């Protein structure tokens, strides 16, 4: 992690606007976006500048996309409005607008997402991210009739030598920091609506932030009736330890209970499974396994929900059961070949 240090005289609105257009030698567009994303740096009319950049036709698509993502951090409401107004975007603007609407938009924004996915910059990743944005809107707002969840190829259960883990309750102070990190991603989350659990994973402490409705029968009945964002998995930044949202836990009703899926914030599924009511509907029992993709471990996660609390435990492999992918050798990219 390294911040860019820009002299105060370069932080003027005109200088930053020129940099974003690639029209000055004192700063690149990438540096300008990086500085604008840093709330600790005082840039006059920051949000206006970002908003204008998103809408500008003469700014590179990558810079416009980065500006929209930065705006989503500094002024979420303005970012949603800017995303709705995007027309004929390039790929990066389309991806930024789709991500903004999925995470921060309203239930009617599925139409705007569909329009962006049908625009001029349709690539496989735009289609995939748009699918996920619509899924996210459906789960955030409990929109029914989402169809059957797709079945995913899962990694087999780990052996007995895999690392065992079990959740613990988190103290009020620790939970407050974790909830604050989740609010950066989902502003509506609070201690009133969610409970926080901690799980020791190797040297790191990850946290589960789960809907409080799980703890009572009426709340569970509601969750069994419509798609929901059941919770979040928060992991520490590997460099400075600050927590951030790593996974979303999505639930969708099935004939016998819930289909569960933990996805990255970009939508790729990481764990998948089911939950079913326990005897007399006094709780829920869930089982999840790792989705087969490069770098995935063998993993079995169990969750038990009852009136007295939530417990999550299981086993996870230390190393990948499915090997990570190996990038292609590219000799023309070697610095030694060019010097």
């Amino acid at each position, binding site marked *: *992690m390294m*911040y860019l240090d820009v002299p105060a005289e370069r932080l003027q609105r005109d200088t930053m606007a020129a940099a974003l257009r690639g029209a000055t030698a004192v700063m690149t567009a990438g540096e300008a976006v990086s500085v604008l994303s840093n709330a600790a740096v005082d840039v006059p009319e920051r949000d206006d500048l970002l908003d204008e950049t998103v809408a500008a036709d003469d700014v590179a698509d990558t810079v416009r996309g980065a500006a929209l993502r930065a705006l989503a951090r500094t002024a979420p409401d303005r970012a949603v409005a800017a995303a709705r107004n995007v027309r004929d975007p390039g790929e990066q603007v389309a991806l930024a607008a789709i991500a903004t609407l999925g995470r921060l938009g309203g239930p009617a924004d599925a139409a705007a997402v569909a329009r962006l996915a049908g625009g001029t910059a349709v690539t496989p*990743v735009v289609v995939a991210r748009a699918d996920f944005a619509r899924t996210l809107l459906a789960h955030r707002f409990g929109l029914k009739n989402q169809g059957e969840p797709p079945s995913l190829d899962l990694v087999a259960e780990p052996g007995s030598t895999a690392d065992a883990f079990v959740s613990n309750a988190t103290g009020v102070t620790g939970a407050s920091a974790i909830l604050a990190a989740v609010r950066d991603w989902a502003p509506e989350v609070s201690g009133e609506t969610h409970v926080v659990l901690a799980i020791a994973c190797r040297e790191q402490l990850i946290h589960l932030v789960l809907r409080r409705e799980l703890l009572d029968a009426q709340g569970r009945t509601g969750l069994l009736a419509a798609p929901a964002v059941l919770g979040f998995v928060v992991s520490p930044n*590997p*460099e400075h330890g600050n927590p951030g949202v790593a996974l979303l836990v999505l639930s969708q009703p099935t004939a016998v209970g819930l289909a569960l899926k933990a996805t*990255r914030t*970009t939508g790729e599924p990481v764990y998948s499974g089911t939950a079913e009511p326990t005897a007399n509907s006094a709780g829920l029992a869930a089982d999840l396994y790792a989705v087969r993709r490069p770098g995935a471990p063998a993993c079995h996660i169990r969750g038990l929900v009852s009136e007295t609390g939530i417990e999550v435990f299981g086993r996870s492999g230390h190393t990948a059961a499915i090997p990570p992918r190996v990038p292609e050798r590219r000799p023309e990219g070697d*610095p030694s070949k060019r010097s």
Partner: protein
Amino acid sequence: MPHVAVNLIYVGWENFTTDDLAVVDAACWATRQVYWQIGFDMFGFDAYSIGVTDAQGYSYIDSDSEAQWLTSEWTIPGNAVDVFLVKSYVGPTAGLSPVKGTCNKYETWPSMTGAVVELVGPATNGVMPHEIGHYLGLDHDGDPANLMYRSVDAGGFTSVPLLTFGQSLTIAQHCFTTLP
């Protein structure tokens, strides 16, 4: 002389221009100079690529968790530091690396098994050696002249940033450092 191998992984290869490659060259050269002053040879810098389609949107990083997932899904076998180069890492910082990165690049999430470096013009010559320093065990340092100071001038380093004797001992203890 002790040495450490480095791999360069261009994420979204098609997006990199000739100018970008020149920025990478300068950053690699700066990295060698920085570590050479404390008697370490940073070598290799073999280039690898992930195409735009295969990168599945991770050519442009939008959060620290995306950087973590990128390194967990791709790796180059062997004892070299994997440096993932991206054109944009949205947010106030220009890179991310674990402090004392793992020796086992097949470790799964939440481990991060490489460093991610954003191309930020001339300042990349400070960001790349800084993030490699983290992977090799160095934490931030309060001296603005030190490589591990938490910010770099947007114009990049104009003189070679410092590393201390104590920092060289830390690097020597990392499993990716080969001692003579």
